[in-house]
């Protein structure tokens, strides 16, 4: 290998071959395995501790939830609300944004339901009825006659030939009671309506098409739905249209973030360009930067495509961090050239800053490497973007810049080229380190890892109002859910039955307000077996009963056959259509050879109790998305901080190896001060040590250390100016993210802003001319 100092150890063609190969491989990968750009809000959330099978079922349910939306039309006059709802329904139906849309689909077809009950009555007896029968079958038979001759039965008597003990009466009442708990809405004049405190609500339920859910698609249906709602509110001034569903939140959140990021990026770029022009009096540095950025972003995108199939739009947005590193390398190369002898060529410039660039590159890559060990998909994507992009920037600076940078690119009259007086400051770094340490020590009682996922997203005024209306109309505010798996459909139902029995106990204690589960309507085979056994206790009284009611011999035989069962079970497939439509969203069915069901739990106050029940059972995963994700992020943050500690140790060793003991340790004081100072100030301002702050810390230590390296390795004012320019551009490109209203981006931006500020202060404080 040729010497770096010779300036000819590499060929630019060889360098260009690298991105070309990368792009080609990415292109092939795109053809073989097309990528999926994820924009969902929930997909940002890390996967919880669970098996891949269970995670697949949770994702399936989340997808269904993402597609499922409810719209509520409300007002004080039912007829007006109904007319508005019908108008909105018509518009929505024409829009093509939905795979399925219903205004009254949940209406109960009583005859269809009763036919299903009648056909399967011997399999469907609840435990109370079973006990009554078994404890005194003779009394039960008499009671059934009394019920038949009573004034009114809830069920029909038309099935007496098959059900002479009128067992369908109890099953029917039980079923109607359960159906009633599913929703507060009931069919009324062709719509689903409910009235709460004098306000009428009409509900429109829909399943969004994939195309309309896509936030990146030009045909995104979400905005059209909002527009239609606003139009209806214009036509009917006394009604309000509310929107409920994750898809609406994802849309508002993602489009808001994209819009905001565009504004912030444009403003940052304009300010950076202005600064370049003022300081350099030409835009040559900009060409260097654009060259580096183009190759860097291209390489990063290609690497992302190579390693990931599902790419989150947020990873791409975070990829803008490459702007910072590309600018840094361009600035250091240009300023070094500007401060050098006009006869120095690009290779001379590289000789001067080569070691700094390499050291800075290594230390920053070490910090990014930490992210690669994360179990958080988005974080790994960010790590790949940053590692590959930074590597590309480094190669551009080391291989291409020496061939591009010439004396003619420098305006010798500019601020950048002008020799400036060195700033003489006392050696402040130890004092800064001490101040940061005291600040952190004072904050220790308030310090701790805490990720509150609910605080990361603030719904817009419209969505907040909408969810309040939805909670009022539906009668519940908070739902958690459990996913239950099994080897067969019945295996899942058996587990679900046990789980729901435990939930019943909690409900009796007032610790939850009910649940929705398929097992409410389809008992597992073990319960159906018990039901038949109980019914069999009535067989000794069958002859008398049939004589009184006039049931013939043929029907009598059929009854005996049905009670004996002959292997016929009531299954999910046996559910009548009107019930099936209610359980479709929670019955996940077969996924990769296993079966899954979901139990939706309403207003649970004792989530830890439910969690304990789930943990006692196999294949039951209780999901409290916000709480679980917070706990998961806590673990992840802790893990990152530990890895970060290791990375810090490695950086110290590298510093000592390169600069010697005294200088190396002194330089290591800088990242320590940056870390402690940033954490101290942010905690003092009321923030918690959370995941997004930790990501910011990784970045500031990587970038902040660069300032120290350049300041220590460069020559006087040359490095000072470069570091100053670098500091300003980093604050403009990253620190500006602190203005984002999207909470994760805001925390990240604020951390970088404060950290880079401290890093710059440390660099000045460590410079002793």
């Amino acid at each position: 290998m040729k010497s770096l100092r010779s300036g000819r150890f590499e060929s630019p063609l060889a360098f260009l071959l690298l991105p070309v190969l990368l792009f080609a491989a990415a292109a092939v990968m795109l053809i073989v395995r097309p990528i999926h750009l994820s924009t969902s809000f929930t997909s940002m959330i890390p996967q919880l501790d669970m098996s891949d099978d269970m995670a697949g079922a949770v994702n399936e349910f989340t997808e269904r939830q993402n597609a499922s939306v409810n719209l509520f039309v409300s007002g004080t006059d039912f007829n007006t609300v109904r007319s508005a709802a019908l108008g909105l329904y018509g518009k929505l139906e024409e829009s093509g944004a939905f795979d399925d849309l219903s205004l009254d689909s949940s209406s109960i077809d009583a005859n269809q339901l009763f036919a299903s009950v009648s056909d399967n009555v011997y399999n469907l007896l609840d435990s109370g009825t079973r006990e009554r029968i078994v404890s005194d079958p003779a009394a039960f038979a008499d009671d059934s006659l009394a019920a038949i001759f009573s004034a009114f039965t809830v069920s029909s008597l038309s099935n007496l030939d098959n059900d002479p003990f009128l067992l369908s009466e109890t099953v029917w009442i039980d079923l109607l009671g359960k159906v009633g708990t599913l929703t507060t809405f009931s069919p009324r004049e062709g719509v689903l309506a409910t009235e709460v405190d004098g306000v009428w609500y009409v509900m429109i339920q829909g399943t969004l098409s994939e195309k309309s859910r896509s936030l990146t698609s030009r045909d995104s249906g979400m905005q059209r739905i909002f527009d239609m709602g606003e139009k209806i509110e214009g036509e009917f001034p006394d009604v309000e249209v509310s929107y409920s569903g994750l898809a609406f939140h994802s849309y508002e959140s993602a489009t808001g973030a994209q819009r905001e990021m565009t504004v912030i990026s444009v403003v940052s770029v304009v300010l950076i360009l202005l600064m370049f022009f003022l300081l350099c009096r030409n835009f040559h540095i900009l060409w260097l930067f654009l060259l580096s950025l183009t190759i860097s972003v291209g390489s990063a995108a290609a690497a992302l495509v190579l390693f990931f199939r599902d790419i989150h739009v947020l990873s791409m947005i975070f990829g803008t961090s490459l702007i910072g590193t590309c600018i840094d390398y361009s600035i250091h190369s240009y300023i070094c050239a500007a401060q050098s002898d006009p006869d120095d060529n690009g290779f001379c410039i590289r000789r001067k800053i080569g070691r700094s660039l390499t050291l800075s590159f290594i230390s920053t890559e070490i910090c990014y490497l930490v992210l690669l060990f994360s179990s958080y998909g988005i974080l790994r994507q960010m790590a790949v973007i940053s590692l590959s992009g930074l590597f590309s920037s480094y190669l551009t600076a080391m291989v291409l810049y020496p061939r591009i940078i010439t004396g003619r690119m420098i305006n010798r009259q500019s601020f950048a080229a002008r020799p400036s007086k060195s700033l003489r400051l006392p050696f402040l770094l130890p004092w800064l380190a001490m101040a940061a340490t005291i600040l952190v020590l004072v904050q220790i009682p308030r310090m701790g890892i805490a990720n509150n996922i609910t605080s990361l997203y603030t719904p817009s005024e419209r969505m907040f109002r909408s969810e309040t209306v939805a909670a009022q109309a539906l009668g519940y505010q908070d739902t958690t859910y459990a996913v239950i798996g099994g080897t067969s459909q019945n295996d899942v139902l058996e587990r679900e039955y046990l789980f729901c029995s435990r939930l019943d106990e909690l409900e009796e204690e007032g610790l939850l307000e009910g649940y929705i589960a398929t097992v409410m309507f389809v008992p597992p085979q073990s319960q159906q077996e018990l039901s038949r056994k109980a019914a069999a206790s009535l067989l000794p009284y069958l002859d008398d009963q049939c004589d009184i009611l006039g049931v013939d011999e043929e029907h009598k035989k059929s009854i005996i056959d049905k009670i004996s069962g002959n292997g016929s079970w009531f299954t999910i497939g046996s559910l009548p259509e009107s019930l099936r439509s209610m359980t479709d969203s929670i019955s996940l069915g077969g996924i990769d050879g296993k079966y899954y069901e979901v139990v939706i739990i309403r207003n649970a106050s004792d989530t830890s109790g439910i969690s304990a029940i789930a943990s006692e059972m196999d294949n039951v995963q209780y999901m409290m998305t916000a709480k679980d994700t917070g706990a998961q992020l806590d673990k992840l943050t802790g893990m990152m901080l530990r890895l970060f500690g290791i990375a810090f140790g490695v950086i110290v060793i590298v510093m000592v190896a390169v600069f010697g003991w005294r200088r190396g340790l002194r330089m290591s004081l800088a990242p320590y001060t940056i870390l402690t100072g940033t954490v101290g100030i942010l905690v003092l301002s009321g923030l918690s040590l959370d995941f997004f702050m930790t990501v910011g810390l990784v970045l500031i230590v990587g970038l902040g250390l660069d300032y120290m390296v350049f300041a220590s390795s460069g020559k006087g004012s040359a490095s000072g100016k470069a570091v100053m320019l670098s500091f300003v551009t980093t604050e403009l490109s990253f620190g500006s993210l602190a203005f984002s209203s999207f909470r994760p981006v805001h925390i990240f931006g604020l951390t970088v802003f404060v950290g880079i500020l401290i890093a710059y202060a440390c660099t000045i404080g460590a410079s002793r001319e």
Partner: protein
Amino acid sequence: MRKITVLILILIVSFPVFAADGYTEADLTAGDWSFISGAFDGGSYTGSFRQTKTVSGSTRSFVSTGRIQIASGYGIVWYTEKPYASILAVGKDVLIQKIRDGQPTHLDMAQNPVYTQIATTLECVFCADFSVMSDTFRTYISTDGTTWSLKLIPKNKAVSSFMESMVLTGSDSFESLTLNETTGDTIKYEFSDMENRELTDEELAVWSL
């Protein structure tokens, strides 16, 4: 032209069938219907009933007798005495059933939209609340001067899914009520000895079962 001719022919053929039914649609909220409303004394009353249940596709019927009690603000209670004793109370959002000497079954039906529709329907029928009746049913009248018959066809989809129609008959007083279910089953209640009076605390105690 041909289509219009066919339509006119259909109407001409249909008219005798409709007329044979003997009912004409009537708006109970407009006009003088005092000869019907007069049959209902309003408030609370008690009496006797004879109930005949018929099952579709079968010639058998189930006949029972007992006392009925309509308590304004509470609901309707049937005390079936023969052939098997039972008590059934249908309130606006509660169903109470007591069979023989067993424990009463108390069902909270407030969350059951189908049940509440039935209860509201029965209440408006027994109290002759024409306003609610017109909101809930399409109403048809048939009268021969001394007796009247009121046929109610539910507008609500939830109710019409199990109840095809309800027929009330009477002269000076309310005499019978027939529920025609969509399955073809029927329940006919024939009332006698109806007495309009305040109910005693003892009689109202059934609602506390």
